[in-house]
């Protein structure tokens, strides 16, 4: 039960960063939908996967905002693949969001450690005395 609620919280937190995560995946090379999905799934060792439905909506929103561009691949077999390419605007937004997250994470880490830090120093003091 406790585990479950923790998972939900983490998923909520992650969901807020879906756009940035997708931009990050596209940073190095163009990829198509399932490739992006797979990279996210594999990178977390399967602990977290963003629903494909969410990703489809994300691609369209990012395209509407001019952060990514789409083009069709030339696969002749099976389904053609729709590739996404990050734009300069996308790179700028990615960099800004990544920096914002790093700053936020540092602050939260610091704040969460406040109590822990004093308690651990208490224990060391108690232990040493």
């Amino acid at each position, binding site marked *: 039960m406790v585990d479950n609620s923790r998972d939900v919280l983490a998923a909520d937190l992650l969901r807020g960063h879906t756009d940035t995560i997708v931009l990050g995946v596209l940073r190095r090379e163009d990829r198509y939908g399932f490739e992006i999905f797979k990279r996210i799934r594999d990178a977390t060792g399967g602990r977290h996967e963003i*629903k494909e439905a969410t990703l*489809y*909506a994300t691609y369209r929103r990012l395209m*509407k*905002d001019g952060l990514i*561009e789409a083009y069709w691949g030339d696969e002749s077999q*099976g389904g053609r693949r729709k590739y996404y390419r990050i734009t*300069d605007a996308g790179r700028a937004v990615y960099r800004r969001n990544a920096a914002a997250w790093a700053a936020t994470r540092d602050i939260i880490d610091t704040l969460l450690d406040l109590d822990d830090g004093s308690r651990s120093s208490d224990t060391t003091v108690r232990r040493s005395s």
Partner: protein
Amino acid sequence: MTLSDETPGGAGMHVHRLLDEAFAGVEMGPEQQDLKEEMRGNLVARVAELTAAGMGEPAAARRAVDELGDVRGILDATEPQPGPSGAAWQSRRVRPDPAFAVRTVVLSALATAGLVVLALAATLVDMPFAAQVVAVVVVAAVAGAITADALRQETTGSHPMPPARAAGYGAAMLLAVAALGAGWLYLRDAGLPWLIAGALVLVVAAALFTYLGATQTNRHKAWVVRQQQEAYGSDRFTEDPAAAARFGIYTVTVWLVAAAAFLALTLTAGWAWSWLAVVGGFVAMTVLIARMLFAPKP
């Protein structure tokens, strides 16, 4: 429903059928068709992954489609939502970086000094050739630096350009200005090698500009992009191709009549009056555009 393992058609057949089923009853427009095609490509890739892991093709197809969830949910989620209008422009305003402004002024002064040196050498003062070369190099370097610096700035409407790309534009600008400088030095009685070197550098600069231009992607901010899309969708000729065709026919007619009237007036009334035909044609054209492109909303 169940699919037998013997269904013919090879890889992807099951996916295609299941996808058609999933989209059954959905009203298909270009947007929906696009999504369906994209899903098809992704599903085929997912099925390939599952079959590679040892799963049978029909089961893999079933599983891949099931993982997608409800197609209607995805379609609803991808429906375009009306974004906020440009009313909040003030809140999006980005003031120029003061340091950038100062840098630009200082660098411009440097470039101006370089140009003054070149101008003086060409007119009044007897300047050593080396000094002129240095002046050209300074002007080119400053032009490149200002270009790259400007592209790195965030503005109200644009994101800053990635450093490597901005540096590329800066380098291309530097080379282009240096090539012009080499040409100028050739005119100032330097040897032919200067002209050849300048031409070569100009070709490199043009190639670099071409590459950068061809690979350029959107740099505008989301609100600008949305505004452009809204503006683009609202003009009549993109919405109504027939109106655009009619406009083309009217245009040809108007100018044919104007040309005929011009000719007739020139031959009869003379030059003093014939120009009125052209003015008349222009007025008719303007009214036509106003009436057709910006048609009053019914």
